[in-house]
């Protein structure tokens, strides 16, 4: 009789389960996380629609028309015009591009800084660790918003930049990115340090060292990929915080400088708008609110997908 052997290892027929594939699968099952991702994509699409809409309607973000201030919604201006007669819809779209871009780039810079400091402190330990962590603690103890305002108020020409550059829109953009990223890296540094400390003593790092690996190899090959998951979750939440920072700085007049729109500086004179054109005061803030909620929910979803207890 011919005995059919059972397949003893079901995994033998499945594709290899790389950790990232497992996480993707877990994330897909997280409903609010997926919803947040969808909302975020919608917001991004909305912001990217600026180019076709500008072309279609024949409007831009800077042309003022003092005869058409606070116009109600019309075919030419689907959301009406603002206090300088500019198209509100297009300004919301372009402003969103600026706000989201600041959020992403400043988070990336802060992540680089924080990761470098956290890995150095955690991997090398000892005196370097003590010095870096005291520095980090000192940074955490600072009142962030007043500090950001001071940094936002600095005169770039006194730092050696040319007056032309200091007045340009690019300077305004990069200034916000830089000041937020040099202030908001402490959380990342702490998370990366803690994760590095845990991994530093792992036997797989010892095995690499026995084979002659130097610190650089161990950090790039073993430490960074293994701190990636707590880092990504932390960075998602950072993006939300950075968007809030940018908006409040721009709102107070120390961030993105008009005429370049951002969701924050579109509310510059909102205290007047509240009585004359409430919609103009509500819409940019609502978009900030929705973006940050989406980003935070996405962070929750990623945390769930990366939870080591699920692996």
């Amino acid at each position: 009789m011919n005995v059919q052997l059972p397949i003893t290892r079901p995994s033998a027929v499945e594709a290899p389960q790389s950790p990232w594939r497992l996480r993707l699968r877990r994330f897909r099952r997280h409903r609010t996380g997926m919803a947040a991702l969808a909302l975020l994509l919608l917001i991004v699409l909305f912001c990217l629609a600026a180019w076709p809409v500008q072309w279609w309607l024949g409007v831009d973000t800077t042309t003022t028309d003092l005869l058409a201030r606070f116009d109600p919604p019309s075919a030419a201006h689907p959301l009406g015009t603002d206090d300088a007669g500019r198209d509100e819809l297009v300004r919301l779209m372009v402003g969103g591009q600026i706000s989201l871009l600041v959020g992403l780039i400043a988070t990336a810079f802060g992540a680089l800084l924080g990761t470098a400091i956290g890995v150095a402190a955690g991997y090398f330990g000892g005196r370097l660790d003590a010095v870096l962590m005291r520095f980090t603690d000192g940074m955490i103890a600072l009142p962030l918003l007043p500090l950001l305002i001071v940094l936002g108020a600095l005169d770039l020409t006194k730092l050696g930049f040319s007056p032309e550059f200091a007045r340009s829109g690019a300077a305004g953009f990069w200034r916000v990115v830089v000041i937020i990223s040099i202030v908001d890296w402490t959380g990342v540094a702490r998370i990366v340090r803690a994760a590095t400390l845990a991994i530093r003593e792992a036997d797989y790092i010892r095995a690499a060292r026995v084979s002659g690996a130097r610190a650089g190899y161990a950090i790039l090959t073993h430490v960074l990929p293994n701190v990636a998951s707590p880092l990504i979750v932390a960075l998602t939440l950072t993006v939300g915080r950075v968007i809030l920072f940018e908006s409040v700085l721009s709102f107070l007049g120390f961030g993105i400088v008009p005429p370049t729109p951002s969701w924050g500086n579109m509310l510059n004179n909102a205290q007047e708008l509240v009585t004359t054109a409430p919609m103009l005061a509500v819409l940019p803030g609502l978009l900030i609110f929705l973006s940050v909620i989406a980003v935070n929910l996405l962070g929750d979803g990623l945390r769930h997908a990366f939870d080591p207890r699920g692996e």
Partner: protein
Amino acid sequence: MGRMLQGAPVSLLEVERISVHFSQGGGLFAKGRVLRAVEDVSFDIQPGETLALVGESGSGKTTLGHVVAGLRAPTQGTVRYAGQAIQVVFQDPFGALDPRMPVSAIIAEPLRIARRPAAEQRRRAGELAAQVGLPPDALNRYPHEFSGGQRQRIAIARALAPAPELVVADEPLSALDVSIGSQVLNLLRDLQRAHGLAYLFISHDLAVVNHLADRVAVLYLGRLVELAPRADLFARPSHPYTRALLDAAPRIGRRRGRGSALRGEMPSPMAPPPGCVFHPRCPKVQAICRVQPPLLGPAPNRRKVLSACHFAE
């Protein structure tokens, strides 16, 4: 390796008077204490030989293994190695493999660090996986898809990649259950025969040691108390601590404990007792033991048995 010097084989590894001290605690105000994890230990390993290093947890055997592997610099003493490469197999097969790496990358890692060509890395990974008995589809999979025994096979394959002459095996079986452990033990022995490997085999399991070792070194509180050929040590232990260890070990067909089992706890290596460090627990203790530390030397009329006891058998 295998160089001949006036007919006598040169040792593959010579460990000479190694001490490892850790400073504990200490900060701005408190002066740290010194933990003497390993104290003045010397031994050698010949090509193809298995030296077992036994002792209770906290005896300093893992630290000594790290010193031999070059993972930790000794506070004093020298390690001379005549071969090309040393590798390590760790105790915990779950922590020894990077969970983010596929098995092929794990096995080939020593070659990648040595910047060998990618084609050689792939070829060797395939050969080694087959040698340690991994299923053919293992190479593209990730550590979490394997059982403990299979992971230990992966770790062994990685250790073999750079063709080492000596492998430090730090309790490689203690995280596995008995039947899996004995399979891995047989694998280690087969690999030794096939490649002429020498092992520094760290273990607390005397049954395993009896199965694999050529010579046995017994560590207590960081000090080498006995170093003897396996048969001599198991038949007639020279040091009272070794005897106590043997008596305490469970053996089939015999109830454990024959009266001279260990009394009390191992003292803290922060505050080792004066004289012979074993004296507070020793059944043969005399006045001299409390004052004079014994030196490691040949036991009476037993040239090959080294023992650190004033009353060595």
